[in-house]
């Protein structure tokens, strides 16, 4: 391309040297290039004329052949005629050749002018900035329009003497293509091309002078006579125009205190006069103009296609995702201009004797008036001539919409005339019905039955109903749809039957393409929304492609019809039907839950390693940490649910408990290890980070328990990297085995919602682009209310709550040894939701409701224990690591505490929030303890928990306990910190509710127990590879974010989550080496 750029650049800079004006330089550049190419064009024209002669010679022969023969024979004969006349069919491309020659220069100009900084902010005539689109009429650029007009004039003259309209058509297509291509390009470039086209027009005088010769001007009538003969027209027009204009001005004046009213009215009259003159000129030349229009005679197919395109783009623009799309609207405008021009020529040719035609023509005029009003509003609004700023803040797009829609109505009525008058050949055949039925069976079957089955089958565990339920519920829709569509077909007249059949075939193909070949990526469906719903804003080019695809399919199918290829369509439809049915059914059966959920498996043993085993005759200890449970709530909970006192029999509630720290990471070391591991003591070790420290503490805890001969069952121990493979039972956040209980616990999406959503989803994917945003409806779908809250949407993803509900299900009494059960539950942690017995999620219910639910849910587990006779021999320590000191809740978060002397907190470096976090839950039931739940005011700490768990009553004899509370703030990656910043190090005595009992701790720490622990466990043997893998696996599964990631990747790669975890584990292990 560089030589072209060189030429362009040299000419342009030379021109600028001479003129000093970039705009003129562009015109000169265009002129020079045109001059440069002139000899080539003369040659092309010569050869074209020669070709035309040959064509003229061949024409009668070819016409004869075309009259008599068709198909292959015709093709062979025409080929032979070409051969005998030495005519090459490539020569038909010569008119394009003249365009092709200019293209390199155009591209060079593009590359040069595009990057030519100097054009920025340079104005030229009405163009404000040569480096931007001119935007003279708002979103409409005027220069490309001028260019198109020039092109059309050229095309008119160039092909005037040509009987063959194909070249005219070709030039029209090129003109429109360039209008679209250049519409939003910098004005400088468009100016270059516009001038190029202008010079091409001038070139006609040299290469084709004959085209201008024929029509000599008729002698003009003198002006007076013209006025005389048209007096009536002039009067009428003038009156109407001035009335409209003056009334608009008065309307404006009413709203503007009659400012400048005289000037305005005078100007209105003047403008009416000017417009009248314009209309007069049009009126006098009406015949000439209508003759031009009358000549326009394109194939009806193109007319209908352009109407279709405008309708398509119009609705695509209106229904576009989130906002209406202006580019699509513009496309609609372009196609409607084309269609309407032709519609006008139809109007001129219409037989006005026909009553229906007359009626239609009258209606057409109404549309035309509406359109003119919109155009007027657009112009007056956009040019913003102050005087004609008639309507309330004009929005150009609104008017363009009006122009397009009235244009569509206008063209459609013309189409009606065509259909009314033209006898369209309809191939009647009995296959129509068969094809139609096969297609609608496929479509409605796919939407209502088979695709829902497929979706179901890819994620069966998300559904709490067997596959057959989809069929049962949606079959009604399926049949109704079939009936309605069949009825439409049966009552349609024959003409329409054919069109209906073709239409349904197109829809089928589009659905097939959208579903199978090119589905748009909407991401996963979460609840009722797509993850990537913004992808609905598809690029314009896809809309264009789809609109063209529609047309292509139409011609393809109507062609198939006439070419007796119906059998192919029928076979294809049958195959399609069989495949979609069999795929849906096969996939559904493969889930093993076609007729009923596999409840049989419930009786099967789930892995012992994922169970909580109690011993019937030996001791069991439950160590239950309910994260962020607000201890003081117990007071209200017991009042609200007095029956709990009975259920929690043998329990002591210790309201007078202080928390050893304010956050989980601060409390857990002491909760598990005791007071030797408060943060101030751990901070002495700056070599290890919190996770390392937590790991050794939990190891020590684990070994102590194992040493005592307990079976150890545990959830993830937070912040600890302890090897879970060593646990006798590990309880992950959720195990896929537990999905067996989904049905029983009603975990899964709401059923009705899913029957509907499944087919709506299928419909969404099957529908053409322009309807998709409407169907999706911003997640509200076709007829759902906005109130998503009312929908059931509990899935096993809400596992923190469901895990609690699950406890009785995964508990058994098979342990042969003593059993220690460690559970750290996040169910009581912010955000405060819960899942009721119906499986409904109650979102954001606030901490009290949530905490109450936690206790009540645990009560069910306790009932289970009692029922299975393992309650008496079980010690239960139920505690929280800290109270509520932060969290968001829409309602009132009532965490009031009966605190005295709260004003002291500032001297202790505490704020109210942190303070509240220091009142945790502590409930203890010893072995064989009986009687209603008792309140015990003994001063306790949650760091007493491990001691209580592993020792016998009485736990603490000393009367004047002084317990530590080390306040730290949470930070990111807190587990990786070697030292936590202590906000306040406190000692509390006797009564935690009196802040007067709180003092700063000034003890010096000399030795820290944590060092001993590290020493003790430094010689732990290396893990085997298998153990490492297992360890990593548990780590990944315990981490929600990782799991999200893993699921996404599994989604993308189309593999199961399980195997994705395996891959991830292997990947990490490989890369560690």
């Amino acid at each position, binding site marked *: 391309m560089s030589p072209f750029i060189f030429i362009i650049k040299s000419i342009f800079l030379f021109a600028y040297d001479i003129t000093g004006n970039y705009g003129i330089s562009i015109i000169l550049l265009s002129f020079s290039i045109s001059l440069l190419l002139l000899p080539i064009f003369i040659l092309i024209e010569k050869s074209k004329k020669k070709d035309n002669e040959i064509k003229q010679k061949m024409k009668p022969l070819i016409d*004869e052949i075309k009259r008599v023969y068709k198909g292959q024979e015709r093709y062979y*004969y025409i080929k032979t005629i070409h051969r005998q006349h030495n005519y090459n069919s490539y020569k038909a491309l010569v008119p394009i050749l003249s365009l092709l020659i200019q293209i390199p220069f155009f591209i060079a100009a593009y590359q040069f002018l595009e990057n030519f900084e100097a054009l920025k902010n340079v104005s030229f005539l009405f163009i404000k900035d040569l480096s931007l689109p001119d935007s003279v009429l708002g979103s409409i650029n005027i220069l490309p329009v001028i260019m198109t007009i020039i092109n059309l004039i050229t095309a008119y003259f160039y092909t005037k003497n040509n009987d063959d309209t194909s070249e005219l058509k070709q030039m029209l297509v090129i003109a429109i293509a360039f209008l679209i291509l250049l519409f939003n390009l910098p004005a400088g470039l468009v100016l270059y091309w516009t001038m190029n086209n202008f010079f091409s027009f001038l070139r006609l005088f040299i290469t084709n002078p004959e085209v201008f010769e024929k029509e000599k001007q008729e002698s003009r009538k003198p002006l007076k006579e013209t006025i005389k003969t048209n007096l009536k027209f002039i009067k009428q027009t003038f009156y109407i125009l001035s009335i409209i204009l003056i009334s608009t001005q008065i309307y404006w004046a009413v709203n503007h205190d009659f400012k400048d009213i005289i000037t305005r009215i005078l100007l209105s009259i003047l403008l009416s006069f000017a417009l009248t003159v314009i209309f007069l000129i049009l009126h006098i030349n009406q015949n000439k103009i209508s003759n031009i229009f009358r000549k326009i005679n394109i194939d009806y197919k193109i007319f209908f296609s352009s109407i279709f395109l405008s309708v398509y783009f119009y609705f695509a623009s209106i229904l576009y995702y989130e906002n209406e799309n202006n580019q699509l609207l513009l496309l609609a405008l372009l196609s409607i201009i084309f269609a309407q021009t032709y519609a006008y020529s139809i109007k001129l040719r219409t037989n006005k004797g026909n009553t229906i035609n007359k009626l239609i023509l009258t209606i057409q005029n109404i549309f035309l008036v509406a359109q003119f009003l919109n155009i007027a509003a657009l112009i007056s609004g956009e040019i913003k001539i102050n005087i004609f700023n008639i309507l309330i803040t004009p929005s150009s797009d609104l008017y363009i919409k009006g122009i397009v829609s009235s244009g569509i109505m206008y063209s459609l009525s013309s189409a009606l005339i065509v259909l009314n008058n033209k006898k369209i050949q309809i191939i009647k055949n009995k296959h129509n019905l068969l094809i139609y039925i096969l297609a609608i069976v496929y479509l409605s079957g796919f939407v209502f039955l088979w695709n829902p089955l497929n979706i179901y089958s*890819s994620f069966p565990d998300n559904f709490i109903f067997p596959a057959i339920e989809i069929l049962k519920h949606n079959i009604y829709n399926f049949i109704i749809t079939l009936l309605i569509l069949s009825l439409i077909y049966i009552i349609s007249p024959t003409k329409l039957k054919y069109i209906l059949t073709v239409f349904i075939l197109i829809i089928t193909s589009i659905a097939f393409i959208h579903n199978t070949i090119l589905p748009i990526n909407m991401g996963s469906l*979460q609840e009722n929304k797509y993850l990537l719903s913004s992808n609905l804003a598809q690029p314009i080019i896809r809309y264009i492609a789809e609109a063209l695809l529609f047309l292509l399919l139409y011609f393809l199918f109507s062609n198939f019809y006439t070419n007796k290829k119906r059998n192919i369509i029928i*076979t294809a439809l049958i195959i399609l039907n069989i*495949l979609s049915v069999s795929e849906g059914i096969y996939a559904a059966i493969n889930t093993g839950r076609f007729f009923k959920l596999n409840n049989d498996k419930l009786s099967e043993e789930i892995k012992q390693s994922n169970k909580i085993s109690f011993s019937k005759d030996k001791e069991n200890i439950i160590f239950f940490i309910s994260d962020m449970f607000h201890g003081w709530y117990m007071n209200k909970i017991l009042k609200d649910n007095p029956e709990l006192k009975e259920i929690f029999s043998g329990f002591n509630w210790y309201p007078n408990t202080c928390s050893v720290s304010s956050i989980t990471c601060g409390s857990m070391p002491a909760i598990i290890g005791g007071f030797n591991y408060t943060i101030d003591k751990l901070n002495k070790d700056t070599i290890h980070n919190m996770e390392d420290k937590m790991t050794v503490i939990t190891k020590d805890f684990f070994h102590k328990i194992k040493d005592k001969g307990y079976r150890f069952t545990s959830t993830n121990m937070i912040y600890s990297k302890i090897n879970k493979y060593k646990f006798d039972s590990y309880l992950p956040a959720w195990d896929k085995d537990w999905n067996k209980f989904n049905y029983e616990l009603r975990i899964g999406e709401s059923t009705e919602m899913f029957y509907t959503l499944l087919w709506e989803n299928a419909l969404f994917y099957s529908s053409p682009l322009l309807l998709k945003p409407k169907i999706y409806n911003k997640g509200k779908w076709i007829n759902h209310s906005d109130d998503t809250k009312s929908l059931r949407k509990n899935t096993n*993803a809400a596992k923190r709550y469901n895990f609690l509900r699950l406890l009785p299900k995964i508990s058994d009494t098979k342990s042969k040894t003593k059993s220690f059960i460690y559970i750290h539950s996040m169910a009581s942690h912010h*955000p405060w939701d819960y899942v009721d017995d119906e499986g409904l999620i109650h979102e954001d219910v606030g901490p009290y409701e949530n905490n109450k639910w936690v206790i009540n849910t645990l009560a069910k587990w306790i009932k289970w224990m009692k029922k299975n006779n393992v309650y008496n021999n079980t010690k239960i320590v139920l505690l929280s690591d800290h109270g509520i000191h932060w969290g968001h809740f829409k309602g009132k978060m009532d965490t009031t505490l009966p605190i005295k002397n709260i004003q002291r907190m500032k001297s202790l470096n505490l704020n109210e929030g942190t303070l509240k976090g220091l009142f945790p839950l502590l409930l203890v039931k010893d072995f064989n303890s009986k009687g209603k739940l008792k309140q015990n005011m003994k001063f306790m700490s949650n760091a007493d928990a491990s001691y209580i768990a592993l020792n016998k009553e009485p736990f603490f004899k000393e009367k004047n306990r002084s317990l530590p509370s080390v306040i730290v703030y949470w930070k990111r990656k807190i587990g990786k910190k070697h030292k936590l910043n202590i906000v306040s190090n406190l000692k509390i005595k006797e009564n935690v509710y009196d802040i007067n009992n709180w003092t700063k701790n000034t003890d010096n720490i000399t030795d820290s127990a944590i060092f001993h622990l590290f020493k003790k466990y430094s010689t732990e043997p290396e893990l085997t590879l298998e153990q490492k893998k297992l360890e990593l696996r548990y780590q990944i599964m315990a981490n929600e974010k990782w799991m999200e990631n893993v*699921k996404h990747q599994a989604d993308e790669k189309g593999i199961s989550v399980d195997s994705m975890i395996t891959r991830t584990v292997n990947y990490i292990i490989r890369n560690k080496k």
Partner: protein
Amino acid sequence: MTYILLYIDPASTSALLYIIIAIAATLFFSLKGFFYRLKNLLLGKGFIQKNDFEDIDIIFYSEGKQYWRVFWPVIKALEQKGVACAYLTSDNEDPGLKHNSELYSSKYIGNLTMTSVYLNKLKAKFVAMTTPQLDVMMIRRSKNVQHYAHIVHAPIDIFTYRKFAFDYFDSVFCSGPHQIEGIRKLEEKRNTHKKLLLKTGLTYFDVMLEEIKKLPKIEKNNPVVLVAPTWKEYSILNRFGTRFFDNLLKNSNYDVILRPHPQTYVSFPKLIAEIEKKYKDEKRFSIDTKPSGTESMAKADLMISDLSGVIWDFAFLYSKPVLLLKTDFDNIEGFEGSELDYEMWEMRERYRLGQIFDENDIENINNIAQSLINNPKTSTQLEKLRDESIFNFGKAGEVAANQIIDIVNNIKEK
């Protein structure tokens, strides 16, 4: 905020479905094409074995068994001169396949599609065929054939041939001067190369003359009128029906044989049935449905027809008069005649066959027939027409053989 994630991939029509459909569709649509390609591959290449006709310079190609009579006299003459030739046919029942001789080999080369594959790869010095439109339609010129000849197989003018019938042959073995005239005019008009136009004649006349000679002596009491109409809309049967035969049979002493075109039974079965029913008991009336019309023609003293090709055979082979319905010929658009601006030979010369009648003469048709039987155009008049219109009557095979040998020898010299 709780993220309740429902990981459903909502576009889960599996790729499998797509693949299966793609395969099925491809299979379905391309099965035919594949089948042909395979067949061509296996048979096309495989079946033009290089040694098929390696030493044979002269090859005849016949579209169907009816053309054997055209080729046979030529082949016979070549054999007598000791020149070897081969015969290819697209008709499994072609009698040419049964002919045996040391100097002759034959082959059935399949239907038209297969034929074009075979012929387009043919290797020979000289190929002759009755099929027109070489290199226009399916049958293209093979690079390995030096000379293509068309053998004319009817006395008619070239007007009724489809477009470009002869343009790409090297030579045409013409039956009469009118064909030479037409072809030369087209050559001029189309600026196509000048073909070798040979004065050959009609070879199948040789065969038919032999057949006529062999016919047993015919015994008849009354004169015989043979009605041999075409099957088209304008034919005697369709236009006049039983009215024609009523008039023909009244007040006359001759017998009438109706020999309908076989297509009439297909296109107008009711008409035939009606005639059959009406003259079931008429002893002077009979219908001839035999494949060969030779016997009826030999019997007949007069033929009544409507510009069927058979009138020329009747007039030239038997020298008996023809009573012809006056018809305007079909539209010749799309045929060679559309580019020729003179009257075609058939129309020009039909008056010399006997007499022309039109609709007005139907009531009187018996008298016209009777008078023609009573006062036939002298056979010399018909013989004159014959000699003007047909080259080498009765010995065209011999002439054609010599012409072929000449052509081949000339190629050799090159």
